[in-house]
């Protein structure tokens, strides 16, 4: 018990990093994913190809390397970013690609009749997407979106490559020092708590969309 109390300050310090990386990424990547999804599904051939390339490259390489590239690679062309900025950019660009695909799946599962009804009523593409399609898509994609949000919680630990200290790194440091696995399991518990909160929030949101079938 004493050991666990001792490790708390360092762990909580790490938790702060974990939390801000999580919230900022979730906040920006989901809307970006929606926008990218509309571009991916646009009629414009060039845009389609561009988005496919974006998705391939971003999903195709580890986030770890993307972090390294943005932080260590961009200075070679004169773009020098702060650690925190580099982290947020890399995470948002990365996660948006996954959300793009999830939303694409959702959008394609909406029946053609919905688009046709919107069209003959004179709704613009924009109005159709945000008023008719998206609300129905959100209901359908909540479970996979939940998967990505939860993966994100754990991926935040990748910030270590840019020298930021998150909760997992705090645990590893302590684990090395105490030559014990206990700190790692405490970190696991902290993740579990955070993810239980995310799961709870997702469940609430699902219930909120339960008013229609």
């Amino acid at each position: 018990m004493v050991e666990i109390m001792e490790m708390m300050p360092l762990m909580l310090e790490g938790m702060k990093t974990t939390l801000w990386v999580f919230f900022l990424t979730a906040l920006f990547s989901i809307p970006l994913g929606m926008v990218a999804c509309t571009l991916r599904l646009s009629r414009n051939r060039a845009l389609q190809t561009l988005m496919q390339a974006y998705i391939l490259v971003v999903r195709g390489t580890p986030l770890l390397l993307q972090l390294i590239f943005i932080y260590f690679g961009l200075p070679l062309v004169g773009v020098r970013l702060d650690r925190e900025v580099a982290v947020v950019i890399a995470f948002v660009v990365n996660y948006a690609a996954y959300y793009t695909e999830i939303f694409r799946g959702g959008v394609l599962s909406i029946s053609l009749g919905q688009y046709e009804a919107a069209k003959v009523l004179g709704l613009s593409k924009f109005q159709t997407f945000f008023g008719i399609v998206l609300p129905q898509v959100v209901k359908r994609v909540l479970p996979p979106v939940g998967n990505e949000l939860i993966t994100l919680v754990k991926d935040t630990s990748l910030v270590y490559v840019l020298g930021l200290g998150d909760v997992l790194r705090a645990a590893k440091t302590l684990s090395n020092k105490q030559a014990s696995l206990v700190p790692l399991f405490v970190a696991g518990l902290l993740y579990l708590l955070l993810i239980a909160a995310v799961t709870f929030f997702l469940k609430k949101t699902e219930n909120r969309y339960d008013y229609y079938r």
Partner: protein
Amino acid sequence: GKKETASDTWADLEARGTVIVGLDDTFVPMGFKDENGQMTGFDVELAVEALGRMGLEPVFQPIDWNLKETELSSKNIDLIWNGYTITEERREKVNFTTPYLDNQQSIVVLAGSDIMDKAALEGRAVATQNSSSALAAIEAEGAMEAFKDGNVVLFDTYNDAFMDLEAGRVDAVVADEILARYYIATRGEAQYRVLEEDFGDEEYGVGVRKGDETLLEKLNEALDAMKADGSAAAISEKWFGENIVK
């Protein structure tokens, strides 16, 4: 936990004829895989020689460095031999052989830096590897309060730390002398400067499971013999260009 189930496995090892040596196979130049997947490095050659003298064959098992003591106590490996720094905390879990190498925590800056001594690190960004003995040394001196943001910038590998140094985002890197030496030699001597002052000395030893007293004893004998007959020195010269074995 400190379970008293410690038992001597020497008889098993002898019967098997092999000893499993756990190491982080990304740790250049102590123990790592070469381009062909062959295990090599200073510690590896030392282990082959020492265990050979004991009539045993080493089997090199890559492990996650964070889990080394766990691997040892669950008997997945028999030795930790990989630039393993002797510390008091580790002594509680593991037995160490007599030290075979001295190591310093050197301070490396860019050649053109205005930092000339430890005192000049005040207010500057200083980086090192996470969970490293360099970090432990800095913490032991309580030096980090003086650094920029009152903290050390920690990287997963020294590679990243040195790259950040080159990018100019940190002003100094504190690293194992042995590693720093290897790194500087590979990246180009002229770029860097090593300060006279350092963050203290430490010793490398081989980690042996508590209870394996026979193995520990025989290993110490073999290492002493190698130091005496110059074969340890030969391996050191091959890897470091000079004899640094103590």
